[in-house]
């Protein structure tokens, strides 16, 4: 990434926006993109340096407190000592908005970044950060599209945590050196690891370990499930064996049926070619079958008739017996009537005698008193008449003998039947019809047989017989096949059921089980190579940083005759090694060079392309080292922004020595009655026209 242009609107000491905004153009000719901005202390170098931090991350550290203390400059404030980001003059003029715009190149595209803060609508005078509304956009200038997640995009260019390696303050260089040396800033060591991309390996090992453990858990579950399924395995194998066997039988039988049907087809083809003979033969067969059926029916009728004939005499006698039975019935009825009359007469005589004797009536209890003689004679006469009648009835009621009459009646009743001679006649008629049908069918059979010769009939007979045989065989085989298919379904059902109980594995590992095994194998191998590379990479990076920083340091130091190299321990503790192999503490100037050397090595190794933006870069360095350092920095292939203080690098000397390496050089000036406004004045311009 390279910055091409910085535009400040009401940013800290830089008053003015719109047409009066502060612009620093870095679009140099021939690809020159370096920048020097000279400025005396308090003129606004740091504010300029911070404008880039604000543009990228939306906040600005209080200068001396570093990147990790979480203390940031306020967005607004009315007093200078608060160091608000909104220009105080603009604030006083009630222009409550400030912004920083960056134009930059990243990859093959140019982008415009605009980050701003403006007072919220309902706030008259913003006094706290929460009174301000933030806005942040990045636009791709090639296609005018806006980047959807600008913060994420910026983090992908340079994570904020690593920004301190690219944007640093020369005043803190000595502190950097001490931190490296004394191994007390664990966070910084961690960031060194980040710059060297160690987390790609460390986190990779961690993630792959976790994934391996997770896969192992899944594998265990599969193993447990599989062991549970083993108890069903024997049954499964038994039924599976049966199923396989019957599958084979069915398959073979399918072939047999096909073969039989082929043969039948051949027979049918022959019979079709010999159609008339075959037709006659077919008719013969039909007639013969009909005759056979009819003869069967005739026989059946004959049996029925034989069963019915023994009752036929009963059917004939029944009318006469019925007449006799009627007569017997009349006789029996007469005798019973006479018995009832005898009873009645005897009761009457009893009552009449009671009258005569003056006794109460046996039925009503009435007593007849003082009967006259005439009345008495009349009663006597009636009694005698009744007695005579009783005697007569006694004679007739037992003639003929009632017992004989009853037995006779029973005998005759046994003879009678409800069978009707009409049924027998119907059977006989049917019998005659069937016999007639047999005769006519035999005539037809005779005619059919006359149509074919004996020889032809023999051949046709042979094929028809073959056809019958084949048809029957096919029927039999298909019947067997149906039965076996039912068995097959049963075996399938049993094996499927057992398979379900075994989790579908059939005692074998499931696909998911096999997949997890493969995954485990791959994860383990990946984890091992990640671990292997991690172990070696750390040392390889240390060695490269040591080598690179030693080269830079030896280029820059004016004590190359005394020092031989830098030494970096695995924990990144750094030492200067003399030619005699001893450690040397080094002066503060040498320490600053060590810090530069390390920062240069780390940023180069990071693979992150971001400008080196250094505020007061020559602090702690003497003139010789400053010139050597600047010369080195401007001759690397990275973009470098230097904001030197007048004592570090005088503008005239800087322009003379390094102006040709830069797109432009600027100088910060002060203006205003109280000298509080900063503004930029261009010096060297190697800008694109």
């Amino acid at each position, binding site marked *: 990434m390279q910055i091409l242009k910085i535009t400040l609107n009401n940013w800290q000491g830089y008053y003015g926006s719109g047409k009066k905004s502060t612009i620093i153009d870095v679009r140099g000719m021939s690809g020159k993109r370096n920048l020097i901005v000279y400025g005396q202390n308090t003129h606004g170098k740091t504010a300029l340096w911070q404008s880039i931090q604000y543009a990228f991350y939306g906040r600005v550290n209080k200068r001396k407190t570093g990147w990790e203390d979480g203390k940031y400059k306020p967005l607004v404030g009315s007093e200078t000592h608060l160091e608000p980001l909104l220009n105080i003059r603009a604030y006083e003029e009630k222009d409550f908005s400030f912004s920083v715009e960056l134009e930059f190149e990243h990859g093959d595209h140019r982008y415009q970044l605009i980050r701003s803060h403006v007072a919220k609508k309902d706030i008259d005078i913003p006094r706290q950060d929460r009174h301000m509304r933030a806005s942040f956009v990045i636009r791709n200038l090639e296609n005018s599209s806006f980047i959807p997640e600008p913060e994420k995009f910026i983090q992908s260019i340079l*994570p904020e945590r690593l920004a301190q390696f690219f944007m640093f303050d020369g005043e803190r260089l000595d502190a950097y050196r001490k931190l490296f040396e004394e191994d007390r800033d664990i966070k910084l060591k961690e960031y060194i690891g980040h710059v060297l*991309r160690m987390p*790609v390996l460390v*986190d990779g090992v961690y993630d792959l370990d976790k994934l391996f453990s997770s896969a192992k858990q899944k594998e265990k579950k599969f193993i447990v499930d599989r062991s549970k399924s083993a108890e069903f395995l024997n049954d499964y194998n038994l039924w599976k064996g049966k199923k396989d066997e019957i599958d084979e039988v069915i398959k073979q039988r399918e072939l047999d049926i096909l073969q039989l049907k082929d043969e039948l087809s051949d027979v049918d083809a022959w019979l079709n070619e010999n159609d008339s003979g075959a037709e006659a033969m077919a008719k013969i067969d039909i007639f013969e079958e009909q005759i056979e059926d009819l003869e069967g029916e005739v026989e059946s009728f004959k049996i029925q008739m034989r069963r019915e004939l023994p009752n036929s005499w009963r059917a004939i006698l029944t009318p006469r017996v019925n007449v006799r039975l009627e007569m017997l019935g009349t006789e029996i009825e007469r005798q019973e009537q006479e018995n009832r009359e005898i009873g009645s007469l005897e009761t009457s005589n009893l009552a009449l005698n009671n009258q005569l004797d003056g006794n109460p009536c046996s039925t009503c209890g009435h007593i007849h008193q003082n009967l006259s003689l005439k009345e008495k004679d009349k009663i006597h006469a009636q009694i005698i008449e009744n007695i005579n009648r009783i005697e007569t009835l006694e004679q007739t009621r037992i003639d003929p003998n009632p017992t004989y009459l009853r037995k006779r009646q029973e005998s005759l009743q046994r003879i009678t039947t409800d069978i009707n001679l009409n049924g027998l006649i119907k059977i006989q008629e049917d019998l005659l019809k069937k016999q007639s049908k047999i005769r006519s069918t035999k005539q037809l059979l005779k005619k059919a047989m006359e149509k074919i010769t004996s020889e032809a009939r023999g051949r046709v007979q042979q094929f028809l017989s073959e056809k019958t045989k084949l048809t029957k065989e096919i029927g039999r085989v298909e019947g067997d096949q149906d039965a076996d298919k039912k068995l097959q379904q049963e075996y399938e059902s049993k094996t499927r059921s057992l398979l379900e109980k075994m989790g579908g594995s059939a005692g074998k590992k499931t696909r998911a089980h096999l997949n997890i095994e*493969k995954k485990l194998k791959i994860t383990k191998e990946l984890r091992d190579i990640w671990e292997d590379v991690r172990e070696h990479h750390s040392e390889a*990076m240390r060695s490269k940083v040591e080598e690179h920083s030693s080269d830079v340091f030896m280029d820059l130091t004016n004590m190359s005759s005394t020092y031989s190299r830098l030494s970096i321990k695995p924990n990144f503790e750094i030492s200067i090694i003399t030619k005699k192999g001893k450690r040397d503490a080094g002066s503060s100037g040498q320490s600053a060079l060590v810090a530069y050397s390390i920062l240069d090595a780390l940023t*180069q190794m990071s*693979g992150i392309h971001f400008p080196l933006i250094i505020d007061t870069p020559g602090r702690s360095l003497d003139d010789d080292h400053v010139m050597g350092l600047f010369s080195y920095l401007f001759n690397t292939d990275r973009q470098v922004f230097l904001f030197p203080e007048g004592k570090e690098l005088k503008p005239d000397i800087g322009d003379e020595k390094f102006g040709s390496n830069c797109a432009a050089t600027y100088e910060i000036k002060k203006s205003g009655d109280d000298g509080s406004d900063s503004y930029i004045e261009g010096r060297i311009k190697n800008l694109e026209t």
Partner: protein
Amino acid sequence: MPDNKSSIDILTESLLSKAKKNDILTDSGVTSEHIKRIISILKDEQFSEDNRKNSKILIDKILDEIVEGQNES
């Protein structure tokens, strides 16, 4: 500066080289592309605490993809 290779270039080369020499990985269908994708995930997720959880999920997906690819081949 002996060469201009960054740390990420060097570790990528090392991982690719080791993966290429690993018969189990090559037989399983693990390609350079898979390795580069895993590196890219870990690199992108390096500074995102929330997304560190995602890296495992994303790597897991790649592993599943490799296994599926092996099944299909």
